């Protein structure tokens, strides 16, 4: 747990540009829709594992003038996120490197703590949720969203895509993480001490030429 765990955690995707391009595509609408109705102007918000910061910036616009902090373990993406602020985005956001297992903030510091597609990559997601819970105020919310690779479906079938899915699971398992995190979130949050939890699910669908090419990566490169 704690600092020992973070030293061993491996981000399965890494930060190759093919990964960052999909992260930059993310918005509050397509990635945090379940959270939006809870946000109000003036709320403070921590975005854990913010990556290049596109979701963070959207969330910041919704809680302004509330203070928003985006943190990520990876310094290079924090530098990229900071350039978004420099490009004229809301003045209520800052980005900094941080470790989800040992956040620098005081107890009950934030109204909302958010983490998108983070817990699936951690070796100790319950410890991360305990730490996220520590820094949220009484009555505040921790909002987390993770995919569940076992819940991905596609057609037509292709043995090599089946093999891709197995391989993805195997690499995550080898990294001590769980590619099927989605289905475990409720249990992990309960283990972290939450007893007032609303669990929902949502999907992305890629079923026309443009979205298929984007998801598969055969469109023109930027």
């Amino acid at each position, binding site marked *: 747990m704690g600092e020992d765990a973070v030293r061993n955690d*491996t*981000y*399965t*995707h890494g*930060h*190759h540009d*093919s*990964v960052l*391009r*999909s992260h*930059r*595509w993310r*918005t509050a609408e*397509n990635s945090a*829709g*379940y*959270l939006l109705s*809870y946000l109000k102007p003036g709320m403070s918000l921590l975005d854990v594992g913010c990556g290049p910061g*596109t979701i963070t910036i959207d969330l910041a616009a919704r809680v302004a003038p509330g203070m928003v902090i985006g943190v990520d373990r990876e310094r290079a993406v924090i530098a990229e996120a900071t350039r978004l602020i420099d490009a004229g985005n809301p003045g209520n956001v800052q980005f900094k490197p941080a470790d989800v297992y040992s956040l620098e903030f005081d107890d009950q510091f934030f109204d909302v703590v958010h983490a998108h597609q983070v817990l699936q990559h951690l070796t100790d997601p319950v410890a991360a949720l305990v730490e996220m*819970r520590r820094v*949220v105020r009484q*009555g*505040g919310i*921790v909002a987390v*969203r993770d*995919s569940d690779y076992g*819940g991905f*479906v*596609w057609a*037509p079938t*292709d043995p*090599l*895509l089946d*093999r*891709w899915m197995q391989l993805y699971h*195997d*690499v995550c398992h*080898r*990294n001590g993480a769980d590619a099927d*995190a*989605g289905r475990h*979130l*409720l249990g992990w*949050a309960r283990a972290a001490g*939450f*007893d*007032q*939890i609303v669990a929902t*699910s949502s999907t992305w*669908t*890629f079923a026309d030429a443009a979205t*298929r090419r*984007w*998801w*598969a*990566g055969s*469109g*023109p*490169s*930027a």
Partner: protein
Amino acid sequence: MDVRGRGDSSMVGGLWAERVIRSSLADQAVDYGLSTKDELAAMSRSWLSWAEQDDGFFAVLHVELIARRN
């Protein structure tokens, strides 16, 4: 749900067909002895060919929690 993202050409390109051969996932798959560069290249080609099929369908499941601290 709506899968529209930030609407410029920079959102296009480079997901799984490229990730499976060029990201940390690819490096780890080979380093861990779980796959080979040849197999990863074949998977990449499968992704590209899937995208060109009019019957191609893919749905991605996400789970989300609102957990309130009492």
